């Protein structure tokens, strides 16, 4: 038999590590700054402002993760973008709808609004494409821990990884692609009303 790698490969291709020089750390600092600012917008419930950070062609994807046999992780652990059913397989239109729904004031699953706190860590820049067709793109990996508390006792922790593509524009970075790897199989929450 052939034992394939049990390591799930990164959803984005892993280029050779970037040299750790002054340019790298400057870029990393800019990226971190952007991600923290983005988390602030979400936690401060400035949802429309948050939408402005998303590229018009954003891909926002959260696969469902499955329990598979050793050796099959790369192939079968996560549902795939563009195939079947995932937790999120969204574009800007649906993300905008989600924001509009919260802002109706009668989206009872978020009325009253949840208290949400996004922790972002382990930020690494893993690739830079200066010549991407729509402007320079930066591939970023990070971890998240998102705390949600709603009404009185309802509390959820969402923990996982994010693989982002950030696009540099005249108005700063825009999120062009976000893959959210939630470290759960059966979703241990009644809803996913929050943004990641």
């Amino acid at each position, binding site marked *: 038999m052939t034992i394939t790698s049990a390591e799930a490969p990164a959803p984005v291709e892993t280029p050779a590590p970037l040299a750790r020089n002054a340019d790298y750390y400057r870029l990393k600092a800019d990226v971190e700054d952007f991600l923290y600012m983005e988390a602030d917008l979400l936690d401060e419930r400035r949802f429309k402002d948050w939408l402005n950070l998303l590229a018009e062609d954003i891909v926002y994807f*959260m696969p*469902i993760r*499955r*329990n*598979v*046999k050793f050796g*099959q992780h790369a192939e079968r652990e996560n*549902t795939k973008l*563009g195939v*079947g*059913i*995932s*937790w*999120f*397989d*969204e574009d800007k*239109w*649906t993300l905008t*709808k*989600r924001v*509009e*729904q919260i802002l*109706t*004031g*009668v*989206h*009872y*699953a*978020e*009325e009253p609004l949840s208290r949400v706190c996004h922790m972002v860590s382990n930020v690494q820049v893993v690739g830079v494409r200066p010549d991407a067709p729509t402007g320079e793109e930066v591939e970023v990996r990070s971890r998240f821990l998102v705390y949600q508390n709603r*009404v009185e006792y*309802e509390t959820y922790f969402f923990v996982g990884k994010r693989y982002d593509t950030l696009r540099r524009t005249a108005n700063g970075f825009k999120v062009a692609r976000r893959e959210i790897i939630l470290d759960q*199989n*059966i*979703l*241990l*929450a*009644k*809803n*996913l*009303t929050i943004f990641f």
Partner: protein
Amino acid sequence: MSGYRFDSIDKLVNTQDGFISRELFVDSDIYKAELEKIFTRAWLMVGHESLVPNPGDFYTSRMGEESVILCRDKAGIIHVFLNSCRHRGMKVCRYESGNTSLFTCPYHSWTYTTDGRLQGVPLYKSLYDGVLDREANSLVSVAKLANYKGTIWATWDPEAPDFLTYLGDAKIHLDQALDCRDGREGGSEVIGVHKWIFPANWKFASENFLGDTYHNPSHRSVDLIGIGPSAASGKKGRRDDELAVAQHVWVSFPVGHGVHSAIQPEQNQYVESFLDNPVLEEYFRHCYEERKRRLGDGARLLPFVGTIFPNTSYHGRQPRGLCAWHPHSPTSTEAWRFFLVDKDAPQEVKDYLRHYYMRYSGPAGMTEQDDLENWLYATSASMGTVARRYPFNYQQSLGAYTSDHPLGGDVSLQVTEQIARGYYNGWAAFMRNASWDEITGGDRKGAARHAAE
């Protein structure tokens, strides 16, 4: 064992006057009795044949609280087994799906073939020869299994009636979730499964899908913004418009099944429903006309939603799928939703539908999120000692139905809780160990005798 004897069950369920005790939704003794009296007898949906297309394919599922393995053996026969080793009970399969020759227990390595036989026992010759009866220690199999238009159903009760008898007149409604959009029988496939857990009693979900049309206001937010297949073209609402001119019907059937369907006027015209995508519009119009051609007058019946007692619900239109509301505790439910499409639908149609399903249904679905909020807080606010003294009100459209309608069952032409009352009548019959004849409506005298007592 539960302290609820059948005489106390009837005090909890008063469908004559329209009151049902909150104890049904929070009490742990009632919950334990449900697992024993309902979930070991009723037909439960386990999965779909498209999840196990090849010999050796398996898909782990649930029946009630218990883990089961849906498996196609090497000869191609579908089985459902309890996922628990006969030796010390360890799960013999903790993968979600796959293909295998053996289910090997991680604990002591007893191993079972895909038809459930105990094939390997370590150190058999020295420790078990002449003592262990392998045949008698196969994986525990369900008593009966049915493959109905691709969906796999099972029961632990060898005395249970066959699946079609159990379905009764609810069949043609469920059919519409399972048949092709153009009227051909069966032909669906599962394109993905949502699994999530929510803190509410399982019956809230089952009851909601019987056809609780009255809860529409809780979806006002999604209706205001519009997420349906014509939403990008400016239409509000969350669904298509195919039922716009139909007469809606709410039907309660024996066993406790309930459906909400619709009957098109005699001329039965297709209503434009997919403005956002001309390929979809064309496809569904074509299917509609084909279905009319195939089914004739029968094509006027269009599906909406329904629940097959006790915990299988379907959405027969878009977002089309089947749900199993697995009990986890009195106040916790594990929901599984199997999303369906016609296997031979064009790729563009499948792709559009899966996106629609994801934005509508499940924990990330803009519609269902509000249901889950309701079910959670309805459960938690019913747990108090005082709250339990006050039964839920089920008086809506009391008495407003006919039992003399070609669809069979008790048919209402207005929004009604008759389907919920019927559901809890079925629930009560199971809970007082009624005969199968009485449960399926064959023994109406028995039911009447019980009502008179």
